[in-house]
């Protein structure tokens, strides 16, 4: 028996708002790439010909490619402890990962500036320990950007990994080790492959979030860490160049979409919702 759809009208307000205040503006912006200042593909030619644009796109990819493995390497042990560390540890870690998730990016960037400034606590501690003579330049460069970014990104990799680890049967590792596998081998051959869906989901989320980063590179990075989102804002706010901004937006959106599509084909997007 086919049951009829109900409550369809309840969807209308949300979809209407989304269409008018999201799909239309985004579509409008992207279409500027082909219409401003003249119809055609000249904006994409411009992106290709001017080294500044390509450099910023390359920068953005590079920064995402550096931030992703760092986040995964730090997040993996935390997710593991969350899964296997007992209820107390789990509660604490979830709280720990959630608190900064709920606090403003600006507040955290501000705190990172204080921590990493020339005469800040990090440099002070390193000097007190005798590890460095001169204060290290930790701000307005790649170090500052990564320090701020990884903190924001960690929850995106910890929670999918945690979800994947929860689904792993603990007896599998026991079985592997009972059969004579060393823990390292059992981990690499049994445990790690089973965490792959979570790992891929987390890594993809981190990568695509970083691609669109605006606040963190502007506040903690330097001029050499200029990223695509900042360039889009500059093109509009400083030059009123909607065509180039639209073309850059299209490139950014296409990269994001392609990565999500890849994730969907390999892991399934349902994994993200969970």
């Amino acid at each position, binding site marked *: 028996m086919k049951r009829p759809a*109900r409550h369809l009208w309840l969807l209308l307000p949300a979809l209407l708002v989304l269409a008018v205040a999201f*799909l239309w*503006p985004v579509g409008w912006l992207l279409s500027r790439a082909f219409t401003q200042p003249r119809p055609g593909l000249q904006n994409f030619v411009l992106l290709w010909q001017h080294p500044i644009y390509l450099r910023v796109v390359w920068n953005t990819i590079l920064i995402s490619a550096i931030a992703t493995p760092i986040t995964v390497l730090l997040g993996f042990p935390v997710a593991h402890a969350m899964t296997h560390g007992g209820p107390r540890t789990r509660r604490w870690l979830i709280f720990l990962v959630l608190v*900064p998730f709920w606090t403003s990016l600006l507040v955290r960037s501000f705190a990172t*500036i204080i921590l990493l400034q020339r005469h800040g606590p990090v440099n002070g501690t390193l000097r007190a320990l005798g590890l460095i003579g001169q204060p290290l330049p930790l701000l307005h460069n790649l170090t500052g950007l990564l320090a701020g970014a990884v903190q924001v990104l960690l929850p995106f990799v910890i929670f999918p990994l945690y979800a994947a680890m929860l689904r792993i049967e603990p007896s599998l590792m026991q079985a592997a080790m009972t059969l004579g596998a060393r*823990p390292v081998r059992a*981990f690499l051959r049994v445990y790690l492959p089973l965490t792959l869906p979570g790992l891929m989901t987390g890594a993809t989320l981190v990568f695509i979030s970083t691609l669109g980063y605006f*606040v963190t590179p502007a506040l903690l990075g330097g001029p050499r860490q200029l990223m695509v*989102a900042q360039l889009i804002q500059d093109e509009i706010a400083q030059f009123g160049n909607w065509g180039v901004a639209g073309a850059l937006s299209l490139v950014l959106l296409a990269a994001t979409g392609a990565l999500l599509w890849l994730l969907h084909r390999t892991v399934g997007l349902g994994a993200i919702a969970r």
Partner: protein
Amino acid sequence: MRTDGLAGWRALRHAVCVLVAAYMLAPLGIVLIISFSAAPFLQFPPPGWSLRWYRSLFDDPAWVDSIVTSIEVLVPAAAASTLMGTAAAFALVRGRIPGAGLILAVLMLPLVVPTIITGAGLFGVFRGLGLNGTLPGLIIGHVVLTMPYVVATVGAALRGLDPQLDAAAATLGAPPLRVFRRITLPLLLPGVISGLLFAMVVSFDELIVSLFVSSARVRPVAVQMWSNLRGDFDPTIAAIAALSFLFALLALLGEALARRRAAGLHT
């Protein structure tokens, strides 16, 4: 069974957890401490204590106006996105709507599309509508960005509810609206409250769309903080940062309470 290497892994795991804990929490501790500093600039640790930065926060009309603007934006935006998001989640989970998965994906799009694109697009179309630099403009932008959180939170809560309860009430003769009001809504309330709190926090913290749509006169806290951080900033920003952290912590506690209540109702 060989267990060599396990102790090493445990030690490493412990070390990373402690490191990450410090990494996640240290910034917040530093903000709280420095907001009570007596120093005229951002010195850490502070040489003395005072409330001067809280005073300067509330004495400066730019900051006070921005707090008022933020509230004027987040209350209607969070209320609207909670109403519409809850309705949409209800239809998607309970409505047996063909293509519900696809519709859900579309509703989640504002989370996936880089906010810079949404912000620039809104700024572009708002120019023709005269909505830039106005409260309605900001509210519309914030509704778009907060609604996905409500749909996700309420949707998850709905999936945890047994539809049989509604069916039972209906079988006993309750009209649909009363079933919703007396059975579904009370059970769903914790999820809705979570969604509302989430929307409020997201709206308060939102910067990118606000940066495009706001003006010097209509400027929420996040934009005020941004221009302060870009210029020569002083510890006033630590005071507002500490207050906004407190706001987030209260919301987190409220969310945990709502969740606990939900868990209590299910047992």
